[in-house]
């Protein structure tokens, strides 16, 4: 609990410095921001060039054009449909994972029972599995079951990485909530289950929301499963279809169009990151430190 005051203290100490240090600091910050943003900037710039200027390496697109975006959404690419597919797969995975994982997170954070360490270890071990070992037998199974080119063939395996992530984050969030809440509710005559439903769950909404963002982003980024279980262009996710874009001539890789599509796939995530940065950072670090 003393973490807060200590952070403040160290901040005060740091802000005491000045002079030459301030410039070094500003340079450091500029370097970090440039490192992180420059390649993304290049994607945006390349996407806004005219296709004829594709190989120009000027830092700004002049003249700017949206031709690449028009080309990306050209019906023969099926990119619009792929975005919908990505949205369905990532959305359903997130919803299903949260519904299942929220109870586990609560139990692991709050209840005392035998075998808790074992279950925590199992869940963290589960998040470290190489997905390829799951995909090989599942592809055979899905082929026999007629699940190839279906949403469920992408959603079900995606839960293998999404669920441990969700449980882990939710456990960290539930653990941060004051235990007095349930105690008060139980003193007032609630059963543990009622305390969870009526007191804890509403108050945990921010944590659940953060977990939802993290799970959604990881499901949206998934590639190996999506490229394995789908071979019909209509069912491919955006990540997969963008890597298969073909240009006017078959062997000519249409980088401008791909960059435009890349921006479209990435932009929602970048906007989400800008809006929810504090929460996302809290969520990302929760697993490692709490």
């Amino acid at each position, binding site marked *: 609990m003393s973490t807060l005051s*200590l952070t403040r*203290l160290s901040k005060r100490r*740091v802000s005491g410095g000045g002079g030459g240090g301030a410039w070094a600091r500003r340079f450091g910050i500029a*370097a*970090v*921001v440039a*490192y*992180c*943003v420059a390649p*993304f900037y*290049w*994607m945006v710039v390349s996407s806004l060039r005219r296709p004829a200027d594709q*190989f120009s*390496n000027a830092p700004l697109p002049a003249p700017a054009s949206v031709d690449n975006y028009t080309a990306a959404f050209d019906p023969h690419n099926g990119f619009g449909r792929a975005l919908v597919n990505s949205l369905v797969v990532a959305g359903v995975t997130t919803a299903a994972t949260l519904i299942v*994982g929220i*109870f*586990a997170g609560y139990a*692991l954070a709050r*209840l*005392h*029972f035998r075998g808790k360490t074992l279950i*925590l*270890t*199992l869940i*963290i071990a589960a998040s*470290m*599995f*190489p997905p*390829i*070992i*799951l*995909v090989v*037998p599942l*592809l*055979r199974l899905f082929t026999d079951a007629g699940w190839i080119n279906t949403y469920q063939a992408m959603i079900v395996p995606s839960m*293998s990485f999404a*669920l441990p992530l969700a449980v882990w984050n939710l456990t960290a969030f539930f*653990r941060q909530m004051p235990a007095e809440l*349930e*105690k008060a509710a*139980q*003193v007032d005559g609630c059963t*543990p289950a009622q305390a969870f439903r009526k007191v804890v769950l509403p108050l945990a909404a921010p944590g659940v929301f953060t977990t939802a963002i993290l799970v959604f*982003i990881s499901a*949206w980024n998934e590639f*190996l499963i999506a490229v*394995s279980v789908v071979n019909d262009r209509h069912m491919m996710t955006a*990540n*997969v279809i*963008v*890597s298969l874009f073909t240009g006017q001539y078959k062997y000519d890789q249409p980088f401008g169009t*791909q*960059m435009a599509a890349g921006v479209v796939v990435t932009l929602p*995530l*970048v906007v989400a*990151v800008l809006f929810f*940065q504090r929460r996302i*950072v809290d969520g990302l670090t929760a697993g*490692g*430190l709490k």
Partner: protein
Amino acid sequence: MTVIASTPGRTAPASRPPRTSRRAGTGRLAAALLSPTLLVLALVIGYPVVAALRLSFQVSTEGIDPRTGFVATTSHYGMGNYATVFTDDRLLRPWWNTTSFALASVSLEVLIGVSMALVMHRAFRGRALVRAAVLVPWAIPTAISGMLWKWIFNSQGVANELLGTQVLWSSEGFHAWLSVVIADTWKTAPFIGLLVLAGLQIIPGELYEAARVDGASAWRVFWRITLPLVRPALVVAVLFRLLDVLRMFDLPYVLVGPRKHSVETLSMIAFNEMTNLRFGSAAAYAAVLFVYIAVVALAFVKLFGADLLGRGTRSEP
């Protein structure tokens, strides 16, 4: 006063609840709350892993059925797939690619990530901006970033222009390997930076005060105070990254392409076997990777004492 079932052990002695009924009730509730998660994990991880291991021992041979004269696939259980995988020289190369990617990327990421964390820790103005910027590489899907780097490393791309070189980066050879390392480092060093930053922020300022009073140099403070105290956060971050690189698939697949010797990882060769419908050897490659990752993880935890569960088994005070 039997209501305080969830009191942590340390503060409990004041009013120890009668054990039997409450304990059993909590256990039942825990089982009810956990069973959906465990069931799903058993279905989507437990079952496939067992199936993959079984598959890896299943040797299929094509032959002419003597009675019908048609080509028929017969299968039996044996070590055939593993024998092929281990005697074939195709295992060593992907294994080394996987390992060298992990060593090179993770070392670079630690260097860059720790430097980033130190910079971010000192940034008191523009903190939000830096934090948002740092999340950008993390938010870009790996497949998309693979394409972005393929474009940057194009023969006529911006990397060659900036470096003044004419390198064919993403075709084959050492340059292809290097381009994957650079792309992976770019994407994930900020993640290490964030975890280390969180570790830095819980170091008490008094320690730095004391070191300054004692006249310690900045370098000495870093080695003697910052690094040891940030170590738990760093170790966990490195473990996560290490296991993530060892299973790498999409970045080399998109950036360089399938079946390229210089960047083919174990995940990729298993995928390649699978898409050619050689499920047995695909499963064997995947199983080798699986065991390798497990061994690395265990060795890492033993060597560096990564406290993965953290205070996971304890309750908050």
